[in-house]
């Protein structure tokens, strides 16, 4: 739970590990995001698309990256203002995902303090399969 004045460029967010991500997680995420695209729970579809396994939803990785930020913020009063994610590679059922982030910029104006974060999601082999950034606003 960081106070704005205690946050410094280079600070790392406590990593968030999730996994192994099972079929159960994938189907629960279909329900959560209200999108049952069959690729994420039917390996026959993945095979037809010549994929090596059933892919984890990109939006699940995005939500985990959001959870990483939310847990870091705790009850600090910081508010997520912007959140951008770019999907760079596959993560497959059975993989363990680890979301990480660090502070890249801090600024302050009259109304609020602003912290910019670099975020990413790694597969078990360390490949960054999603990268992104976020801005958190703190009341002045």
């Amino acid at each position, binding site marked *: 739970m960081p106070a704005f004045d205690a946050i410094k460029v280079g600070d790392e967010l406590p990593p968030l590990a999730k996994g192994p991500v099972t079929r159960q997680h994938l189907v629960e995420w279909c329900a*959560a995001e209200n999108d049952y695209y069959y690729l994420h729970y039917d390996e026959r579809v993945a095979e037809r698309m010549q994929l090596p396994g059933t892919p984890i939803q990109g939006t699940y990785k995005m939500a985990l990256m959001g959870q990483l930020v939310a847990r870091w913020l705790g009850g600090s009063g910081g508010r997520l203002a*912007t959140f951008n994610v770019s999907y760079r590679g596959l993560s497959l059922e059975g993989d363990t995902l680890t979301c990480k982030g660090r502070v890249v910029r801090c600024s302050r104006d009259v109304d609020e303090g602003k912290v910019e974060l670099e975020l990413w999601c790694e597969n078990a082999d360390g490949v960054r399969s999603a990268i992104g950034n976020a801005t958190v606003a703190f009341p002045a």
Partner: protein
Amino acid sequence: MTEALRELREQMEARYNVTRTEPVELGRVRDYLLAMDEPAEIGFGDVVPPLFMLTLARTRRPQPSKGTAVKAGDEYEFRAPVRVGDTITVTQRLADIQVKEGKNGPMYLVIAEGTFRNQRGEIVCMQRVKSFRWGQ
């Protein structure tokens, strides 16, 4: 404009140029939290996680389309808190289709934008979703 691009544009306009209104239901928010392995300790009137917005205005069943699609990216700007019990109207529109030449023919980057308003008409969230499509 090629015939394939014209067809894709029509398909994407039908998909994205829509407005949908739905309530922020407690059960849906709990499903979201449970899927994230978070305690579902939330009640009526509580603020929902900002990224819960990604679950609104979705179509539940896959929409038939030609070719293959993968998500390229998502962008959100959160302007005001959303609470359980709010009613959100999402107005989406197809913003752009960019053509990129791939090894096996053209690849299309489809960009759609969404504006999320609450029951008081206040904009609570802006969204840009990007997907790659090919084999059209």
